[in-house]
């Protein structure tokens, strides 16, 4: 799942995800609330949850941190199955500190690349197969 | 000259020789200042010197002897007025070394436009001190008297000699002090 308020970035990332071949499907939304609504629907319908979520930190209305907080609160049961990755436009040391404190191990600069996706896949999902 | 020194001089004469003598000395003086001297005021150096000279004449003392006694008295007066400068010291050597850096600094804050002598110190051994004194007014016996006052205050005998000399066209005076055990 891609969460970013920039339509072109989401479009680009969707292409990259496709090129990397690591995902069966990819959904892109433009704000944190839309993301939370979608996840709620999926949980209620007991349908397959996105296992990899990329969240942009700087979004209006609900930013990346707020999304993470709400997501962790609402969907405790499936947290183990989901890998969240925070995305940012600059390696801001304050944000990096925040990521450490909130126990977010994955914190990457934009844009995503095919290599980064492959590495993530290898770290988290290869073992599951 | 700041008024406080002139006030001390006035009090010195009154305390040691009486008010009548003091009145006579002042009457014989040709002072530039008409109003009474107040401590924070600034007055011409010549007024102090006039009082000293006329006082010596009346009391039959040399200027040197007068200034020495005055210095001794002056220290006691200043110590009484500003005890905080002395409280933390038990030995005159340590105290004397604060005069230039600490005491004169405070004096400048309190008394604007005061012209103070400059001291430099050297420390040849544990119970010796050399004070190099510079002042436009060259009141060497006055300082000698003050040092005697310091000795009295701390109860430590100080034997002193001094030497006047020229350095780079400037007249300086080195005071050699030896402190008793």
């Amino acid at each position, binding site marked *: 799942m891609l969460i970013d308020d920039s339509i072109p*970035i989401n479009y*680009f990332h969707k292409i990259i995800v496709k090129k990397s071949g690591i995902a069966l499907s990819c959904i892109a939304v433009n704000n944190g609330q839309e993301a939370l609504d979608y996840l709620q629907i999926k949980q209620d319908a007991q349908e397959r949850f996105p296992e990899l979520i990329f969240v942009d930190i700087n979004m209006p209305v609900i930013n990346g941190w707020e999304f993470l907080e709400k997501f962790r609160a609402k969907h405790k049961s499936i947290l183990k199955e989901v890998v969240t990755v925070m995305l940012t436009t*600059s390696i801001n040391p304050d944000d990096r500190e925040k990521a450490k404190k909130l126990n977010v191990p994955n914190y990457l600069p*934009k*844009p995503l690349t095919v290599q980064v996706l492959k590495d993530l896949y290898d770290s988290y999902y290869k073992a599951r197969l | 000259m700041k008024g406080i020194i002139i006030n001390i001089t006035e009090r010195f004469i009154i305390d040691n020789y009486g008010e009548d003598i003091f009145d006579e000395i002042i009457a014989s003086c040709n002072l530039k200042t008409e109003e*009474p001297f*107040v401590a*924070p*005021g600034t007055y011409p150096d010549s007024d102090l010197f006039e009082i000293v000279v006329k006082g010596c004449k009346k009391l039959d003392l040399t200027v040197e002897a007068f200034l020495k006694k005055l210095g001794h008295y002056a220290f006691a007066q200043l110590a009484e007025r500003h005890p905080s400068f002395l409280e933390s010291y038990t030995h005159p050597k340590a105290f004397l070394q604060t005069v230039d850096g600490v005491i004169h600094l405070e004096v400048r804050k309190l008394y604007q436009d005061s012209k103070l002598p400059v001291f430099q110190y050297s420390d040849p051994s544990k119970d010796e001190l050399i004070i190099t004194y510079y002042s436009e007014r060259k009141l060497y016996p006055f300082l000698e008297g003050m040092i005697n006052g310091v000795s009295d205050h701390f109860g430590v005998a100080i034997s002193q000699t001094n030497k006047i000399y020229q350095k780079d066209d400037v007249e300086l005076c080195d005071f050699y002090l030896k402190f008793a055990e």
Partner: protein
Amino acid sequence: MNNNEKNILKLKKAEWKIRILEDMVESRTRNLYSANLDLQQRNDALQEVIIKNTELEQFAYVASHDLQEPLITINSFIDLLGQEYKGQLGEQGNQYLKFIADSSKGLSDVVSDLLHYSRIGTNREMTTIDCNKLIASIESDLSATIAKSKATIDVNPLPEIKGFKTELRLLFQNLISNAIKFCAEGTPPHIIISAEKGNNWTFSVQDNGIGIAREDQGEIFTIFQRLHSKNDYEGTGIGLAQCKKIVHLHEGEIWINSTQGQGSTFCFSIPA
């Protein structure tokens, strides 16, 4: 004069003294009041300057931060365009694309450097830093560049100092990178780093590179000032401006000793 007359005279003199002293107090109080007023005005002016300065810093940060995202978008799609439509653009189209890509990269670099520059000094935590370890770490980071340029770096014993770690690292890194970058043709860069203790610690980074002419030495610490064309040496020209800002952050000074063609020694002082 009898005693009575004497006493009256004494009293009159005392009263006169009191009046003189009262006048002095009044005049001192007036002086104190205007000195206070003066101080207050200066304080107000200082406050205004501090506010304006903070605003400017924030502006620089926000501007460069908000410029990053559109730039990332542009660069990403330029890459894609290049990859997916390479064969179909023709020679001219490819050239257009290359120009766009280069300009965009140049813009990204400037914005990124500006962002870093505006962030210098925002972390207000001072720590004790072992400069020897710092240099070793920088050498490790730059190992590829050092190997490629065959550079040798001699590090004399350096002290431990109090400072801002990230910024000090950037300071040394910029100076070392410059020493490697601006080397003389055919001569591998040789860098000597040392420190001397006086009232402050004076560090020097000496190189055997192309040097800087006297008339240019004034402007090199200015932000985005470049002495050479981009074709000859890459970079936005912010490195030395960053160094200056960092040194000033530590309340030190930075200067250069150099002759054109005979290498440069960059020196900076940090209070001990």
